[in-house]
């Protein structure tokens, strides 16, 4: 299989085929409704409560179903698919343990505003509340981590609910929506009338900004001496990267992009200062602490960016552009609030944006960039993880889609792989979910079958979802899986070294498998490199091999991520390196 294949007809053909009103089961309604929503692939795992749904899928080939090896793999894959494509990701799991295995993935998507429709089975309606076999109150369990959820009690409601769920997931501030379908609802029949309109009273996200507020921002730019843009995931999610580029180049205002904003602005640009925050660049953090006009575009002032709130951007008038009004003023008091879709707001701003005459400030930012670039001490005897990431960037010319797990390798990927396109960096920011990196790459590859997808993992996180190697093998999903193996929980080790005075507690990952052999056990090619020469050769072999490959890079154990700001410090209190 090469991801979505030609077997699927055009959307119009499918609509023609499936729009006919007919008496069918809830399960068939679900499948047809998914098609009508434009779903091309779903990730799932069957079980008792969704057997009617899987029965309806028998011989059904108008969308692809990927059978993962764990529900967590399914939801992270759906998440990766959504982040890489901009479409809604879909996954299916059964009731009880199947549904609860999704919780981490739902929370991950919720924290990073990723549009997902999560379908779970439940016990039949007459068993709900009786502690029946494999029953769990999944709508109750996931209420704090979904944008909205439905427990379907009547098959008649199913077409409307599915349509509403896709609408809610993909509009306004995006997020996961859960649909819990009891077994009898999936079995019951009704006349299927596809729903094409949506009318949810009280749900009406503000897309276009208040013009008075955007004018205020333009005026503020005229008088600012040291303006700075902080751009986040909202740029990528709204598809506003071109508008952002125009805004930055027209105004000449320096820009820092958050972890989820990486790729929203080309990293090679002079005005780009790198990532801000705990492991942000010297230039970004110094600029944040000295700016007098901070223009936040689609970022949510996460504490990994602001660090100590008292003392964050102390001289700045704060502008916050966000589709979610609740983000504005939540963490940082805001002087000019602008509620709206980032792309729409930037389109309006670009009409009247003018060059900011702040040459001295730009020169100062450039000087900070030059003074303290991201750096590390290379070695000829040991592999350095930063060098490995740089090699990945060099050999792929920055064109790959990169997914990461969570930890030191994630920060090095963010620092040393330079992203120039939106949706080319897939990473768990808000929740920091280990186990996310590899399955999300499977989803990203399904969304972009023809692009190179690299999944960068640590030896810890790789062992949280390694079983999904099976689906790469059997479906020939050509993800290049990189494992940065330092034999330790690296970020935890770094904290224990710096904050807990070197009292290393339970961080050695002894007993890890031989990763190339593990790959081979699943039928995936496995390679290992312990020095630069081997690394170059193994990576070239991986790139030249069609299909999935696992490459393990054995790197120096004690390497730390710098710069680093400790919790409780302001962001300009940076530890720049080991030599300090």
């Amino acid at each position: 299989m090469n991801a979505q294949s030609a077997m699927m007809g055009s959307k119009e053909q499918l609509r023609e085929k499936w729009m006919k009103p007919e008496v069918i089961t809830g399960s068939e309604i679900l499948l047809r409704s998914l098609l009508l929503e434009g779903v091309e692939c779903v990730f799932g795992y069957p079980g008792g409560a969704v057997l009617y749904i899987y029965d309806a899928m028998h011989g059904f080939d108008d969308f692809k179903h990927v059978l993962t090896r764990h529900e967590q793999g399914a939801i992270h894959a759906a998440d990766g698919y959504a982040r890489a494509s901009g479409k809604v990701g879909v996954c299916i799991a059964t009731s009880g343990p199947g549904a609860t295995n999704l919780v981490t993935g739902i929370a991950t998507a919720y924290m990073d505003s990723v549009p997902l429709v999560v379908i779970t089975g439940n016990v039949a309606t007459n068993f709900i509340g009786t502690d029946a076999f494999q029953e769990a109150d999944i709508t109750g369990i996931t209420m704090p981590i979904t944008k909205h959820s439905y427990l379907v009690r009547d098959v008649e409601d199913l077409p409307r609910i599915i349509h509403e769920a896709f609408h809610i997931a993909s509009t306004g501030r995006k997020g996961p929506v859960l649909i819990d379908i009891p077994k009898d609802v999936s079995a019951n029949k009704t006349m299927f009338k596809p729903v094409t309109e949506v009318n949810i009273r009280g749900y009406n996200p503000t897309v276009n900004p208040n013009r008075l507020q955007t004018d205020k921002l333009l005026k503020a730019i005229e008088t600012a001496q040291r303006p700075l843009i902080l751009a986040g995931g909202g740029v990528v999610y709204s598809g506003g990267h071109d508008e952002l580029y125009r805004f930055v180049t027209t105004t000449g205002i320096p820009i820092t992009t958050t972890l989820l904003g990486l790729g929203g602005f080309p990293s090679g640009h002079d005005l780009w200062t790198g990532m801000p925050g705990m492991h942000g660049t010297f230039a970004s953090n110094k600029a944040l602490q000295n700016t007098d006009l901070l223009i936040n575009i689609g970022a949510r002032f996460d504490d990994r960016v602001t660090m100590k709130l008292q003392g964050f951007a102390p001289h700045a008038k704060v502008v916050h552009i966000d589709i979610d009004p609740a983000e504005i003023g939540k963490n940082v008091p805001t002087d000019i609030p602008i509620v709206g879709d980032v792309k729409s707001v930037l389109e309006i701003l670009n009409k009247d944006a003018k060059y900011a005459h702040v040459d001295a400030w730009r020169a100062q930012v450039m000087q900070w960039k030059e003074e303290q670039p991201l750096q590390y001490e290379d070695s000829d005897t040991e592999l350095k993880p930063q060098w490995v990431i740089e090699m990945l960037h060099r050999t792929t010319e920055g064109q790959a889609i990169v997914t990461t797990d969570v930890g030191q390798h994630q920060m090095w990927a963010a620092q040393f792989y330079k992203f120039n396109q939106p949706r080319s960096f897939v990473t768990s920011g808000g929740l920091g979910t280990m186990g996310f990196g590899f399955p999300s790459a499977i989803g990203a590859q399904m969304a972009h079958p023809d692009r190179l997808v690299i999944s960068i993992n640590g030896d810890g996180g790789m062992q949280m979802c390694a079983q999904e190697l099976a689906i790469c093998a059997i479906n020939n999903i050509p993800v290049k899986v990189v494992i940065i193996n330092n034999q330790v929980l690296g970020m935890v080790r770094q904290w224990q070294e710096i904050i807990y005075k070197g009292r290393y507690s339970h961080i050695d990952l002894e007993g890890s498998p031989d990763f190339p052999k593990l790959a081979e056990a699943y039928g995936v090619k496995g390679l290992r490199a312990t020095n630069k020469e081997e690394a170059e050769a193994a990576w070239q072999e991986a790139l030249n091999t069609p299909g999935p490959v696992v490459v393990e890079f054995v790197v120096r154990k004690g390497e730390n991520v710098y710069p680093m700001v400790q919790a409780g410090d302001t962001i300009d209190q940076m530890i720049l390196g080991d030599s300090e």
Partner: protein
Amino acid sequence: MPTKHTIAVLVNDQPGVLQRVSGLFGRRGFNIESITVGQSEEAGLSRMVIVTEGDSGTLEQIEKQLYKLIDVIKVIDLSSKPMVARELALIKVKAEPNVRPEIMGVVETFRAAVVDIGTHSMMVQVVGDTDKIDAMIELMKPYGIKELSRTGVTAMIRGNAT
């Protein structure tokens, strides 16, 4: 400075909607002093009245976070305008025949009502704003309160405004 706020929340009358609202308060660390739910003027919609405490920033966050819930149709800060707020309490108080006239006197002063009399007790119903109920309870304490049930506040803006 933390002050009391009374807000009305118009919500879809869906199963779980109270859990969504109260869960939001719980996990975001907002205070719930009282919460009442019942039918509204429109079929399919319920009105919740929530009394909470916090500074103006917290109140703003409460309103904004409530609006993020799909089932929330409207949030109204009642206490920002002249409003009528009422709660009801039933107080079962020890009342031997010799003290009953005394209790009746308090009840009359407060325009409350005696709604049940037992051999050793009386049940008093009082309606009013929170301060009045508090005062009534204080006065009943010396007689010995056997049981107490308060409804929490329900409220509306005065005049023609909605």
